[in-house]
């Protein structure tokens, strides 16, 4: 029993070291540089603006304000983003860095009306 405990303790010690290393790595991988911010509004199941110009090759912070009372899901396979924004609330979506180009997005819950593009240039 003593040897089992010793074995478990050694494993636990090893794993603790590993997790500490991971946390350090996580901290090191966090970059806190200010990101350009853009705003996107949802009203009457439409995106405003429906065409958003952003700088290419930098990460951007997109603040999405849902002014409808119903939830909406910002979705774009091209941007690899899906985010549900509850009714009458706001949410942040981080995008990029994007290569120059046009990236369509839409509202999953109102796909016929809620559509737009992000143009990275």
């Amino acid at each position: 029993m003593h040897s089992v405990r010793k074995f478990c303790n050694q494993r636990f010690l090893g794993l603790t070291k590993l997790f500490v290393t991971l946390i350090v790595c996580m901290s090191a991988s966090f970059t806190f540089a200010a990101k350009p911010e853009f705003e996107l509004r949802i009203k009457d199941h439409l995106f405003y603006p429906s065409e958003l110009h952003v700088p290419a090759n930098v990460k951007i912070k997109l603040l999405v304000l849902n002014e409808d009372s119903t939830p909406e899901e910002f979705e774009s396979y091209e941007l690899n983003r899906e985010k549900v924004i509850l009714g009458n609330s706001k949410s942040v979506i981080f995008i990029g860095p994007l290569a120059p180009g046009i990236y369509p997005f839409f509202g999953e819950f109102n796909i016929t009306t809620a559509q737009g593009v992000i143009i990275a240039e």
Partner: protein
Amino acid sequence: MSQPIKFSSLLLLLSSSAAFAGTTSVDRVYDPYVQPLEREIEFRNVLEHDPFGGNDVWKTRFGYGQSLSERLFLEFYVVGEKEQGEAIEEDSYEIELKWQLTEQGEYSSDWGLLFEFEDELGQDVLEAAVTLIGLKEYNRFIFTGNLSAIIEWGGDINDEFETAFAGQSRYRLSQSFEPGLELYQSETTSAFGPVFSGVVKLGGRKRLTWETGILFPLDDETANQTYKINFDFEF
């Protein structure tokens, strides 16, 4: 200015750490994300096949889950197991809580934690696990690593502490079809092979995510062929 440590280094670290590790068979590689208002029904199947006449083992898992908040997702599973020539038996139940730690894309990699508790039916065997989930996006490639710390206890099992690793690299070819590779490393399983996944949109919030793959052994203890097929219906 310090150079951020690359996610590939983390995965290497995770892989090497798993070499001393414990038990988890082929299952699923988790991403760290949670969506508010998310509800899903999940059906997972794993078949361990021995083409040389050994016993085939089929494990099936049926789950229901829903998000509790923007960062927490709770899921409940019933797990069944069937050996060749026998009827399927209810094997255990399991509860999972996923916690999204970072916003997608905010940092150079995304992180989450998964807490699991499993109770084997008809036996005094309990299992609890915590899994660190890391995900790195690199152009159209997605690299995901799950590192688990597991404890097992009860009257019908020797108390154990184990670790396990599951990793996936996936290429975002199209929403309906994404090829990838998966690696599973634990005390009882060491397997590697191709996986394929996709999403079928069913209108509104409804969608069906499918995933299938075949894993080949990297050691003598793992089944010769392990097939997996998972369905995840969100509504």
